[in-house]
């Protein structure tokens, strides 16, 4: 009985860890098919498309973590609870809008996914290519494993440009001349534009 349990547990552990890379690539492939079918549905008004797109994309990302990383450890830790929640509110809205409207750019392009690669114990990246008539552009999705064993995206490198790194540079520059409240107000203003 004991050995049966041991084997069962070990077996579960190995099958899980062996196929996780494939699972992640699969998730991306399936969801990108959903995204393209929404984008190509000409009968659906853009506003409705956006709602549907967010429904597909939202569960894949950890937007709260992205926001934290964009601010950086030292700034984030210095914020009050209220400031944090307001920032996440504004940032999440902004990043979702920005991501969704970028999806609208690439309706005719082909997408090609490579196999996922485990960079670290808790990090997996998936390289994909946007293939246009004239170019082949890399998009790298970066996943991490959450405490409750889910794999979520915390950053995307679009043509080598990391979303988090770029925001991070911009935020730290903005916060040199502005108070945190002014900064979040401006971020909010930009979103509602």
């Amino acid at each position, binding site marked *: 009985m004991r050995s049966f*349990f041991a084997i069962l547990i070990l077996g579960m552990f190995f099958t899980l860890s062996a196929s996780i890379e494939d699972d992640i690539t699969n998730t991306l492939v399936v969801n990108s098919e959903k995204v393209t079918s929404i984008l190509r549905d000409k009968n659906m008004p853009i506003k409705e498309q956006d709602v549907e797109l967010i429904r597909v994309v939202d569960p894949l990302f950890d937007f709260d973590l992205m926001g934290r*990383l964009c601010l950086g450890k030292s700034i984030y830790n210095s914020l009050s609870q209220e400031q944090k929640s307001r920032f996440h509110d504004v940032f999440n809205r902004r990043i979702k809008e920005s991501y969704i409207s970028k999806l609208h750019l690439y309706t005719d392009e082909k997408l090609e996914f490579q196999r996922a690669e485990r960079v670290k114990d808790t990090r997996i990246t998936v390289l994909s290519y946007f293939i246009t008539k*004239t170019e082949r552009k890399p998009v790298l999705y970066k996943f991490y494993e959450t405490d409750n064993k889910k794999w979520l995206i915390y950053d995307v490198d679009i043509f*080598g*440009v990391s979303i*988090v790194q770029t925001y991070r*540079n911009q935020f730290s520059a903005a916060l040199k001349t502005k108070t945190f409240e002014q900064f979040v107000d401006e971020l909010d203003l930009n979103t509602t534009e």
Partner: protein
Amino acid sequence: MRYLLLLLFVVIFSSHAESIDDFDDEYVEKKQEPFDPLSGYNRVMTNFNDYLYMNILDPYLFKGYDYVAPKVVRSSIQCFFDNLKFPITFVNNLLQLKFKRAWVDIERFGVNTTIGLFGFFDPASTWLKLEKSDEDFGQTLGYYGVGSGFPITLPFFGQYNLRDLVGVTADAAADPLYYDDYRKYNMITNKYEAWGIVVYKQFNEGSLRAKEYKEFRKDAIDLYPFIRDAYEQNRNMLIKE
């Protein structure tokens, strides 16, 4: 046995508990500003280019051009120019000792010039899966460890840095669409034609990227540093490739 199981669980679960610090190491902490002696000029030039794009090129010139030459045609023109970049990519692949890719360049050029009708089509990519490589002398310099120097924004042509600008000048020697009095064989007859081609090439490419540019500039809080950072990150990726 109970303890063993408990231990197993502890090991499994604790190995995944990690702090936010692990992520912070993946990103550059920007304590000091990058070396940017021309930042004042660059900023003005970026705004000039952006104004040109948003107020003249995009609403008028690109629109008119799209009417004469729809996207399919413009992509084909882009393919034609890309095909003529063959000597540049080939030489730079050799310089970076990427012999396999240099060979692919030869195959691509052969296929696209003949079956692809002088390069207006790209059957090498679509049918034969021969991947196009994007190499220039700026990347070759980067490959051998030359730093980017400092950012320079050019009117009409956009963001560069010192290293890549030196690269562009060097690449001209291998460019069939460049004119040089001292060169034995020139495909074109004079300097003015050469400049005309350069400007047209840029215009055609710009028209293909208009939507993208309009979309990405929305992410900027401050346009110049945003473009400068994105440019450097993109070039670093190309150098590593």
